[in-house]
Structures are given as C-alpha cells and as structure tokens.
C-alpha cells in the first residue's frame, strides 16, 4: 500500500500506515539511536504519519481545497466537552494496526504482570529489566538493512520464548500440567516437527537471547549509518515482507492443552447463572451514574423520534435494560413492539407479522414485500397511527442480512413509525450502505453501560457452555413455548422416542414413516403434509436434524444432549 502511495503524484497530504519498527527506525534516525527501548505504547501513537505538503503545491484542479488536516482536527477535538463519548479519545490509529506475529507466551506473561501488582497498573513493556529481555522485539526492532543477516535466525526468534525457568516462575502454581510439550502448530501434520523444533529451541534459548541482545546493540548504529532515502524504500518492502510473514504460514503456535485436561466440566446455562449470581458487582456506583446519564436523554430521544429521526445506540455493554427503562417510562401510552433481535427464531417476517397484528389485520400475505407494501399504505393513509419499534440487537445473526435490513429500513423510513435500536457487533455499521443509512435516518447515541449481555448470550451456543451447535435448555423451552400445542406434542413424541433409545448405540433416529404413524395415532396431525410443514419449522429452529439412512429413508434426530431432554420433559410435566 505504501509503495503505491509513494508512487502517486504529489497530493497535498499523505497518510501512511507505518509499522511499529519503521517508526522506531524513524525515531532512531532522528535521535541518533540512544533510546532504543522506547515504550511501545508510545510507538503506537506514531503509527500514523502525516506529511503535509507546502501550501502552494496544491493541485490546481483539486476543486475542494480539502484541508485534510483541518478535518482531522475538527474530528478529534472537543474531548473535554464530551466527557462520555469514547469516540473522541483517539483516532482510529490504534484500532487498525497491522497484525504482528504474537508470542505464544505473552498472554501468561501479561497476566502475571497484572497479577503481580494488584491494584496498580503495570504494562508489559515497562522498563522492568527482567521482562524487557525476553520480549522478542528484536525481530521487529532492527532495520531492514540487517534483516537478511538475521533471516536464518528468524525462526528461532519467534519460537524462543521465555526460558522455562522464568515461565514457571511467572505462571501461577494453579496451572496444571507443565511437564508435557505444550506448543504445537495448528495443523496437526506439522505437530511433531514443531515440537521437535521447540525442544531444540529451548536448549538454544540462552544462546539466541545473547544473539538478540547483540543484534539490538548492533542494529542501532546500522540504522544511523544508512542514508535515509534508501531506508525509506527498504522500509516499505520490509513492511510488506512482515505482513506476509505473519499471514502466510498456516502454522499458529498455541499450546496443545485442552479443557478436558483441565478437569473442568462444561457448565450449562443454569449452573453458570447460579455461579455468576454469587459474584458481587463492582463499580456499581459508577455504573449507576453512567446509566443515569443515559436516562436523561429519554425525552430528547422521544423528541427526535417524533421529528423524523431514528435512534441507534452503540457502545460496550448490554443496552437491553436501558431500552427497557425507556419503554416503561416513555412508551406506556403508545403502541409499541419490542423485538429481541438476539432471539434465534427471529425473522423479518415475524416482525412484519407483529406489525400487521397491531393493525388488526387478519389473513395472510403472499410475500414479505406484499406485506410491507400493505403496511406502508396503511401507515400513509392514517397519519394518526403511531408505532414505536424497539429492536434489541439490530445486528444479530438473524437480522443482519441485506434483505432484512432493507425491509426494516423501509419500515423505519415511514413517518409514523419510530425506530429505536441497539447494535453491539464490532462491524455492525457495515450492514448499511448509503442508501440504507438514508432510509434509517439514524442519529447515533453512544450508551456505554458495561452491563453484562446476560440475555443476549443465553441463546448463543457459547464456546464453553454447550458445544456442537446444540441448543441450551432455556432456549429450547423458549422456542417450544412459542409453538402450538400440537407442535409441542409432536416434538414431545420425538423426545420420548429418542430417550427410550438412548442406550442403543446404533440408534440413528426415528424414521419418518413411523413418526407419522405415531403422530396420527396421537391425533396430532392429519396428513403427512402437515407433519412435514411442522418438521420444517423445527429444522429452522435447529431443533431436529434429518439424515438419510442407507435405505433412503429419512431419520429424525434431536441434536440435543439427552440429559437436557430429560430435564426438559420434567419441566414440561411440572407445568402440566
């Protein structure tokens, strides 16, 4: 990227992304290199380099004398004014740097650093002599000129971690098995080779460290000596090189330990919830204050909603409670629909359905677009109609699709539909192109709450909670409660059959014909079509899986742990 930028004709201003090491070199260049061990935190700030061209070299046909710098200034200012706006703190330079290869042990090190000095903050890169030695800065710290000379060492540098002794010291005794070889690449074929390499490397650790130390000392004068122009050219190629280095190899070094060895059983939602309820919340006073600040905006939101804007909330922390309070304080007398975007069964269709429900429409629509058109006409005809839509997590899996967003956007663009939504995902704004943004007519509000995403994550097949794409109990109940009694009966039949066969290792599922027979006998369905329609519904909610057997017959299986199914049946019976 940089090279093309440099090749380009003189623009008034250039913004260049430069890697840490290049910035380091740059600094060395200027200061003559006495301060090699610069803080990396400091370096980060310098990653964005702005070169300003003299004023009178402006391109003539550059119609707008775009004062980029002014723009940056304008955008970055007013920090004091907006105490609660995180966006103002720093530019994007910290958020989007290039990825570097990471040291496999860094996390543990940082952890122990954080742990060592409770209450006080210590960064990894402070001038603690013990720590600075084994940061593998070296490969990045030296200039391009001696890159080639070091190339053969590269591998060992990346691999060479802290000496074992140090690592043992750093890791708290709680860690279980340190004795086995812990490091290997992600692709298993290479496992052995890397493990071997690692063994060798550990032996060479001290040696390579010495080399590193030397290199560092050597590199500084070299940097100084190189003419700066030549350096620049090399810098770019060096940066590119490093980028591909970081991304080319499929190997990522991580330890091989698995959760099984940790002997920590997987928790289900309920125990997780119970455990978490024991945790006393911290900073409650501050959080409360934060929330109060947001609540002061409620009236303003109402005003702006009425004036044709829609409101989107962003920022860390669940905004569910905030919106819920907004609803209870402001919307008691208005027709409103709350939409839980995080609910796995949500779809645009169901949103539109509830809108038509509000309008007391009986009957069905041929397509979503017909429905939308009907709603649009209805709202345009009757200007006294007012509808508030509250969407939690507009950016959820189910709603983030282009078509869904288009339809919700069209809904929100109606003058008497007021939309207030929250987004959480890092890349959520990418959902909207200019056309959609103008449909939504957003006003953005940052509402950082630090609240836990309890409800939002409860449906998620969380990493450590439940694996293999199965549904946790709570969402199973949630989904099933929304079904008709017949559908529930059908599902119960399937559960019972599966539980009856749970000791049968060769059980592949219930064959469709048998299932149909059973359902008929229980007066749950009257034709095989209705059953099929019902099964499609289940499949959409990931409640069942179908498999074609060797004989071509369909087998139905519930991909949920048998334990959960038993629990579920018990709960159902309690309610009945």
């Amino acid at each position, binding site marked *: 990227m940089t090279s093309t930028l440099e090749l380009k004709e003189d623009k008034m201003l250039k913004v260049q992304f430069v890697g840490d090491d290049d910035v380091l070199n740059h600094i060395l260049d200027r200061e003559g290199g006495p301060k090699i061990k610069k803080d990396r*935190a400091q370096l980060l700030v310098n990653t964005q380099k702005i070169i300003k061209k003299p*004023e009178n070299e*402006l391109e*003539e046909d550059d*119609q*707008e*004398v*775009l004062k980029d710098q002014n*723009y940056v200034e*304008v955008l970055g*200012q007013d920090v004091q004014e*907006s105490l609660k706006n*995180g*966006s103002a*703190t720093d*530019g*994007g330079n910290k958020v*989007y740097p290039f990825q570097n290869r*990471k040291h496999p042990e860094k996390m*543990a090190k*940082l*952890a122990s650093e*954080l*742990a060592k000095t*409770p209450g006080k*903050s210590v960064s990894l890169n402070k001038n603690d002599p013990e720590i600075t030695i084994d940061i593998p800065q070296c490969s990045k710290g030296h200039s391009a000129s001696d890159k080639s000379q070091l190339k053969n060492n590269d591998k060992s540098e990346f691999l060479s971690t802290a000496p074992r002794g140090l690592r043992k010291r750093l890791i*708290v005794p709680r860690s279980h098995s340190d004795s086995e070889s812990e490091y290997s690449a*992600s692709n298993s074929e290479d496992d052995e080779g890397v493990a071997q390499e690692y063994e060798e490397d550990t032996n060479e650790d001290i040696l390579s460290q010495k080399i590193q130390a030397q290199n560092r000392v050597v590199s500084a004068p070299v940097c100084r000596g190189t003419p700066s122009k030549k350096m620049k050219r090399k810098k770019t190629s060096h940066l590119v090189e490093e980028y591909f280095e970081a991304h080319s190899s499929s190997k*990522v070094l*991580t330890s091989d*330990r*698995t*959760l099984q060895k*940790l002997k*920590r059983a997987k928790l289900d939602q309920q125990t997780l919830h119970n*455990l978490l309820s024991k945790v006393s919340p911290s900073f409650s006073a501050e959080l409360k204050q934060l929330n109060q600040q947001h609540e002061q905006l409620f009236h303003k939101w*109402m*005003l702006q909603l*009425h*004036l044709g804007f829609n409101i989107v909330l*962003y*920022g860390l922390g669940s905004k569910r409670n905030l919106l819920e309070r907004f609803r209870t304080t402001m919307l008691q007398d208005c027709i409103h629909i709350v*939409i*839980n975007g995080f*609910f796995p*069964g949500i779809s645009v269709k*169901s949103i539109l*359905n509830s809108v038509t429900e509000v309008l007391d429409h009986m009957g069905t629509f041929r397509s979503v677009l017909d429905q939308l058109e009907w709603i649009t006409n209805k709202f345009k005809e009757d200007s006294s109609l007012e509808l508030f839509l509250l969407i939690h997590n507009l950016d959820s899996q189910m709603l983030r699709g282009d*078509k869904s967003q288009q339809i919700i956007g069209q809904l929100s663009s109606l003058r008497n539909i007021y939309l207030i939504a929250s987004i959480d995902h890092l*890349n959520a704004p990418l959902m909207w192109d200019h056309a959609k*943004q*103008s449909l939504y007519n957003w*006003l*953005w509000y*940052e509402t*950082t709450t630090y609240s836990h*995403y309890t409800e*939002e994550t409860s449906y998620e097949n*969380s*990493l450590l909670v439940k694996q293999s794409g199965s549904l946790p109990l709570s969402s199973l109940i949630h989904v099933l409660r929304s079904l008709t009694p017949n559908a529930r009966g059908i599902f119960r039949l399937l559960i019972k059959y599966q539980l009856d066969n749970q000791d049968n290792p060769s059980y592949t599922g219930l064959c469709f014909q048998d299932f149909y027979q059973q359902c008929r006998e229980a007066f749950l369905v009257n034709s095989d079509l209705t059953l099929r329609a019902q099964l499609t519904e289940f499949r959409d909610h990931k409640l069942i899986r179908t498999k074609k057997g060797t004989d071509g017959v369909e087998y139905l299986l519930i991909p949920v742990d048998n334990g959960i199914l038993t629990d579920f049946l018990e709960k159902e019976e309690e309610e009945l």
Partner: protein
Amino acid sequence: RYTSTGCFVFKPNFKKRKISVPIEDYFSKGKNASEDSKLRFETYQLIWQQMKSETERLQEELNKNLFDSLIEFLQTSHSGLWKNSEDWSGEIKLREIPTAALILGVNVTDHDLTLRSLTEVLQNNVTPYVVSLQAKDCPDMKHFLQKLLVSQLMDCKVDVQSKEKESVQVIQKNVHYSMDSLSAWYMNFHVLFDPKMRLKRQISQFLIRMIKQNEIQHLHEFPLILIFGIATSPVVIHRLLPHAVSSLLCIELFQSLSCKEHLTTVLDKLLLTTQFPFKLSEKVLQILTNIFLYHDFSIQNFIKGLQLSLLEHFYSQPLSVLCCNLPEAKRRTHFLSKYIFSISCKREETQSLLENLHVYHTNYFLVLRCLHQFTSFLPKYPLGRQIRELYCMCLEKNIWDSEEYASVLQLLRLLAKDELMAMLQNCFKVFQSSSAKELGNTAKKIEEFLAQFQSLDETKEEEDTSQSQSKGLQKTDLYHLQKSLLEMKELRSTSKRQTKFEVLREQVVSFVDSLVREYLLPPDTQPLHETLYFSSAHTLRQHLNAAPRIALHTALNNPYYYLKNEALRSEEGCIPNVAPDICIAYKLHLECSRLINLVDWSEAFATVVTAAEKMDANSVTSEERNEVIHARFIRAVSELELLGFIKPTKQKTDHVARLTWGGC
C-alpha cells in the same frame, strides 16, 4: 397461530390511552421547563418548515432544466417515429426503443427524491402512464410485472374491473400473455428505472420480451419509452444488458446537476443570507461539508445535518429564543432578562444590539460575496474556490491575519486590467442587488473605479520618457561595474515610477482590504452572536458520524474513561486488574495471534482475577471460587464473541479464532 417470541406487541388499553402527548412536551421536559421553551420549539418548527420548503423549491428549480429537456425528448421520440415510418431509416428506428439515460451522480441517496419528482412531473405534463420501478421493489420477475401492471391499473381506473383481476392472476402464470394484454391496453407508456445494478436480470428479461413484441410490429400499439437512472456512466447499460438487447435501444444521455453545485446553491440560499436567522459556526459548517465531501455527496444528508443542528440549537441554547426575524426578536427581548444580571443593560440596549447584529450580517454577506468575486479567480485559489471555504475561514478568525489573505492581496496587485475590471463589475452587481444603505456608497465607489479604468483607455498614457542614462560606454573595471549595477537595481526597485494603472490598482486593492477589515469581523466578536450561531460541533459529529468501533475500543482498553473510579485509573496502554472482566479478557486476548487456546486464556484470566480478589476478604473456599472465576471467564468470552472479537474455530480443539487485527 405461530408467533415468534422474539417480538412482543404492547397495545395500551384504549380507554386509558391519553390523547397523544404533544411533542413540545418532550422538548421542554428534558430540562427544567421554562416559559420560553414552548416558544423556542415553535420557532424551531417555523424555521425548519421554511428551510425545508426553501430546499424543496431549490431542488425543483435546479432540476427544471433537466426535466424540460427530458420532456421534450419524450414528446418527440415517438411522434417522429410515425412520420418517418415510410422510409427505411424510420423502419430501423421502429425497431429501437427510445431510451433516456439519466446520469444522476454518485450521491445515491438523493436519487430517490429526484426520481420521485421526475415521475410527478411526467405524470402532470406528458402522460399519466408512468411507472417507477426500483430495485428494492422488484426482487423477481413476478413482482416486477405486478408492480408494472398494478400500479398502472390502480392509477388509471380502467373500467373493466373484472378483467383487471383476471389479468393480474394471469401474470403469475403466463408472463408472455400478460405482456400482450399490457400492450393492448396502453397507448403511451413510460417506464422509469432506478440505477441499481440488481435490476439487471429483470431489465434484460423484460427488454427481450419487449423486443419480441416489436418483431410482431406491436410497437405501434405499445409505444414504450424507457428512462434509466445511472449513477456513473452510460457504459453501465452496455455492461448490464446483453448486446442483442442494448443494440435495440436508442439511448440519449441526460446529465443531471452535479451535487457540488447543488450544495453551493443550498448553502447560498440557506446560510449565506439574512432570510434565515439561524447560522452555523465554523466548526459545525466544516463538519457538515466534510461529511458531504468525504462520505456521501448527499444533499439530503446535509440537510438532515442542518435540521439536527437547528434542533440542537433550540434545544440546548436558551438564548435561541431570540433566533427569529428582527421585529419578532425585539419583541422577545424580555426573555433575556433572566440571563443578564447587570441592571444597566436595558431592554432598549438589547434591541439595538439585535439590530446591530442584523446589520452586521447584511453587510457581512455582501462583503463576503464581493471578496469571493476577487478570490475565486486567482491562480491556485489561496482562499478557496468555493464561497463556503472562504466563509469558513472568515468565520474562524480575522481573515486578514492569515497568510492566505496576504497572498491574495499580493496576487490582486498583479492582476491585468481587464481581469480586474471584470471582478469589479461582478462586485458592483452584488452590491447593486442589495438594498443595504450602509454599503450604498460602496457601490458608488466601485462605479467610480470602473469609470476611472475606462478613462485610462482613452487618455493614452504618456510614455514616461525614460531618462536614458546612457552615459556612454566607458571603460570600467569589475568593481565599478558591479557598483553601478547595484545602483541601477536600487533605483529600479525604490523609485520606479508607477503608471496610472498601477496606482489605481493599488487603490482598488486597498479599498477591498478596507472593506474586509471593516465588515468581515468573525461573528464571535459581535454581542449576542450566541443567539444565532450553533457551535456545538461535537454533538453533531457524535450523532451523525459516530465511530462505534473506537467507542468499543476505548471502553475495553480504558474503563476509567467511563467509570470514574480511582482504582481504574491507569497509564496509557495498560489496565488495572480490578477492571471489568470483559476488559481483562480483551486485554489478554490482544496478546495472542490468530488462534487462542481457551485453557491458556482462562488460566491467564484466573491469574489476574485471583490476584485482584486477594485484596478482598478470603471468605469462599478456593474450589468454589475457582468455579466462579471460571464462570466469569465464560461470560466474558461469550460477550467477546457477541461483540465479534472472536469466533469458535474447528482448526484446533478448544481454540477460538481472533477476528481483529493488531492491538499489540
């Protein structure tokens, strides 16, 4: 009936339901209600309505040319066909569908508005049979035709009601047949297309069918004209449509107004005028224009920004009650008494201040335009080519203190006579158009200058007979030669006699300079400027051009920024171990490369958290505490997953993949 539990409908009891709360209540309730808040809200609505209708009027005016030429094209394209149908060129033309390609520019968001008004204009002036098709309405052929027919039928009320329904049903079954019926029914027909690429398939399908029709000589019964909206260049049409189709189109290009010109006009009519009292400060204006230039080129968005700033101004600035036309503002001065503590400031005084402010603005814009006349033609545009750039600079500070202004004066001093005269003429027009009394003599002065320039032409300048210093060629040595050369040089630079023109030019320049210094004072030097100027630029940026990613980053990296607890205070780049769980988990995960081992992560997390807790009372048994910590870890990890920082991976057991860059 099946409903998802994802949606909950709340319908308040109708008996209980109050008549809806008036909006102004929300305006005043947010803050301590004051008597003037209602007035402020009303003023807001009034001004906004005026501004809105003004922008609509402008839009109409700007589009007029384009629409006129389009209409002309539409009216002639088919009538010409009938006449020429005898000779062979008409025969060829007969096979072509007249098509207008409308280049609308990249500001996609504004297209909707333009197309809508175009439809309206066509319906009023050419034919009622206009269908506007947009990509979002027509995901497939079925919808496409449905829209084509139904919208047509509903509008024109064809008398055969039953037939209608039939045909609509037929469409679903047999597209071809419906086309026949279509052509049978409509004599004159225009189709408008939105410039979306997604329409590709439909268009080509549709056109192919139309061409089949043509072959059976149906064009006589079905004179169809297509109008495509295109964002960038007409090449798109050829790329989207197969050659067989595009060769049958007779395309004529129409260029719509560029959005930059549009913006200039909007600014000119809304802000650079005393018609609307509301003004933007330099920073706000810059943010709005920057969003326009850097993000979307959308006039609609610009106007949205304007609306928001207007609203914010009236909402947050109590003095804004005086932001209305002069006589009304004078009547409202008593609202001000609350904010002015010195008794000496009488009502009359505020009224005169308001009057001064008004006069200031009248003069300001005149002189600004005048200065713009001078600067907009200078090479390299030291003060910008557009008047908005000049305006921004003048708003910010004393323009005459800037280097750019100095260079402008220098450049003006180098101008040739005809250039200067043209500029003066333009200026004269500017001043003449206004009725301001204070600047009346300025116009006169300019007129005088013009006359003087003219007279220069007639009285041929007497050549200054250069006192020929030909002292004859003498033999000199090097030293003397240098000396005499130096003398000559000095002589030329200091005592070089100026021509009459140069003297006059100097006068003009100093005249302009004096105007600028007198009238282009930045607004914050004026008393009561707060009433009219909206200056809270960051609010605007926060709501219009937010950066959610950076907000997340800040919240995770520096919790102290939000939670003002001393325990959370930390240096740049590090984080205290008492920070919220998610921050700690985030910070730890930054140290990993593409894959993260969950066990390592959880251990590191536990290390940090135990250390933080050790300060607290050691009440719980360690095993239980470990479990709780593990649960906290799980929560933090699943929250990070929700936020999109990590995702599960199958590359390696018990690993997650990082989804973000760097952060190292």
